């Protein structure tokens, strides 16, 4: 039986003035899959994630998350976990106080919440920083706080915008395990990243975006087959986003081969 589609976007368009952030994007996010969202800066990844969160309304097109329009039904966010690209947390609170705040907003059952929090902070190595002010934490520890906030309520959908930035390799490895565990429980995970090795290693499916459009989509092995010559995802990425020539010219110039 095919996996249920938990989020869907069809021909979604969004412009900021003359800039087309999304230009007819369609995609499906299924139960129990990890979907990687790749693309150069300004390709529309963050806008797409914010539309799926219901933060912004698209200019046109159809969006459905857990059977609802997320913009008109903000209650759907109760079942979504989200890590934004730019972290803006409350610097004068401690991580524990922030987790408690979110648990209260989400009306989590206290004992279950405490157990879940204990597991997450122990796994990600944040237990000895729970009483520090968030403002005093390193970038990596702040990222851990944001990741825990997204996983705290065991959501059905996870929308993660550059979640691995700032995490050291050991924590990134544990984070990947947590994602697998969530996926195995049926959670649909979409995450954008610039780290292609990570996408290649953990994603079931990949979407490559460029200038607001989906330029390649499919399972990792299918993407790699797009051009027979190419061997790595990086090379495919550069090819489909039209950056290959530009990048190779710069590399040649840097090596003095131009």
């Amino acid at each position, binding site marked *: 039986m095919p996996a249920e589609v938990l989020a869907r976007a069809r021909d979604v368009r969004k412009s900021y003035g003359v800039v087309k952030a999304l230009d007819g994007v369609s995609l499906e996010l299924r139960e129990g899959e990890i979907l990687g969202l790749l693309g150069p800066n300004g390709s529309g990844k963050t806008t797409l994630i914010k539309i799926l969160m219901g933060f912004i309304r698209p200019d046109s097109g159809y969006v459905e998350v857990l059977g609802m329009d997320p913009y008109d039904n903000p209650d759907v966010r109760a079942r979504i976990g989200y890590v934004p690209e730019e972290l803006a947390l409350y610097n*004068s609170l401690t991580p524990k106080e922030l987790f408690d705040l979110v648990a209260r*907003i989400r009306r989590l059952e206290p004992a279950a919440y*405490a157990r879940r929090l204990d597991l997450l902070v122990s796994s990600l190595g944040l237990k000895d920083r*729970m009483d520090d002010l968030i403002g005093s934490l390193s970038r990596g520890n702040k990222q851990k706080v944001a990741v825990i906030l997204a996983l705290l309520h065991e959501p059905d959908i996870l929308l993660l915008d550059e979640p691995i930035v700032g995490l050291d390799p050991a924590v990134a490895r544990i984070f990947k395990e947590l994602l697998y565990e969530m996926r195995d429980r049926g959670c649909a995970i979409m995450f954008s990243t610039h780290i292609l090795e990570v996408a290649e290693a953990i994603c079931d499916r990949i979407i490559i975006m460029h200038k607001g459009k989906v330029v390649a989509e499919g399972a990792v092995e299918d993407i790699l087959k797009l051009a027979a010559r190419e061997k790595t995802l990086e090379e495919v990425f550069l090819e489909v986003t039209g950056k290959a020539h530009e990048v190779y010219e710069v590399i040649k110039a840097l090596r003095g081969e131009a």
Partner: protein
Amino acid sequence: MRLREAIRLSGFLYRELVYLRMVSTRANVDMARLRRGVRWASINYALVSAIMTAMLALSSISPLLPLIWPPQDTAGGVELVDALRASGLVSTAMLFTFSFMLCASASWLLQEYELLKPLMHLPLKHGDIRLLAFITASKEVLPFLLVPAIHGITLMLVVGLPAPALIGASYGYASIFLALGASFSLSATVSRRHSGRSLRARLARAVSTLTFVLCMASTFILSQMVSLITRLVSQISKFIGPFSSLLWLIYPFSAAEGLIMALSPTSLIPASALAAAYLLASLLAFDRGFMRFWRGSISPIYVGVGEAREVRIRPPSKLTMSPCFGVLLKDLKMAYRDPRTAYMLFTPILTFLSFFPALIEDAKAAIMLLNTAFLASSLMLTMASYQLLVAEGNSFWLLFANGIRKKDLISAKALTCTLSYAALAIPIGALAWLLLGPLDMLLNATSSVLLSFAASSICLAYLARYVGPETKMAKMGLKDLLVILLLWGIIVGPYALVALIIGPLQASLIAIADLGIALIVLSTLH
């Protein structure tokens, strides 16, 4: 680094300061205006500095002017002693106040926004960066260095002796250096945030919060000091009798008395020695203050206190698991730890403080004054609740991504203001009831708490449409401010009328009705 180069480089930092002041003090900043303001920063600086320096110099010498150009049409002449005393006091007080205000603002912004940190990555020596920091933070004060010189020259013209001129100038410079030292030291204290649960960390946080609140209240406190000081001095004089003549030793009175003492050869030496001692002490205070500021500027704002230790995770109480309670708790904690984000919450305390001397003087006027303070507080708290929205900064995403409803958000903000005000108003009302007699005061205090909740909730419900997950900063324009004032008037007006015409009991029924309306408005939010 040459001084000229340092002045040129400090211009860049100063433009950044101008930019930060503009964006942090205006609700809606027009980009074109902002660009213009930053571009014209140096010209504005030159103009404002010239005007302020001239104003300070004129204020310092104005008591002496009638001695240079005696007025034609007045019968009595001006006494030299009175003129010297007034000139000495005005000069020191104004130089200290203005230097302190300008340098405190600039040095605090330099630390708060960590503007010196990018310079640390450049191939500059620490001494060079220190020089840049000093020039930038005190740039607006440096032209004031001309004022003591002008004051000294004028004293020389009036008295015809060099000693009073030197003493006057010396106290002027002492005031400037003392103000610089105090403002540098202050910004180093209030800019640091201490982490941890240890006693030391708690004390450090408490000192920082208290210092900030006291600084904010300094205008109120100073105005009260001025009105109390004459009575206080006369009381002390009566009490200490012959020792009251020792007032010439105490700054800033020593500046005034020193000028008079310099006229007589017998008292010239102690007056000069004292002036030199104060100048030396002010230089030491400046050095200590600046070094504290410097150390604070190059170290992190958030300070970890104590070793990291594992925390046992305990589930929160079931009774507290509601969004409204969560936001309320967060806002109370943040307002205490970082009072810059919600300083309006403290304004009712200052209002009651400012009425305090009048309450002592005239017990009959006390009831009227307290009632005015109760009403004024409801307006201040309406603005405080808006400030709590602003304090969310760019963290609205966090609340909305986790599914907060505007109803809960607004209720929590209004409750934060109301509860912190109730903790002040109800005891004051009860005290007034015990001391002044009528139960009305307690009734009025309770009504003002209800009115504060009603006004805050209704005004925030109006502003809620501007707030969403993508909001980077809650802002309101002039039109919104007028609407809020109108709403406040509609809520509080009938109460005030009934209280004046009929009585406090009937007025409290209006306050309860306002509360009911506020609850209905809140229930319509999603």
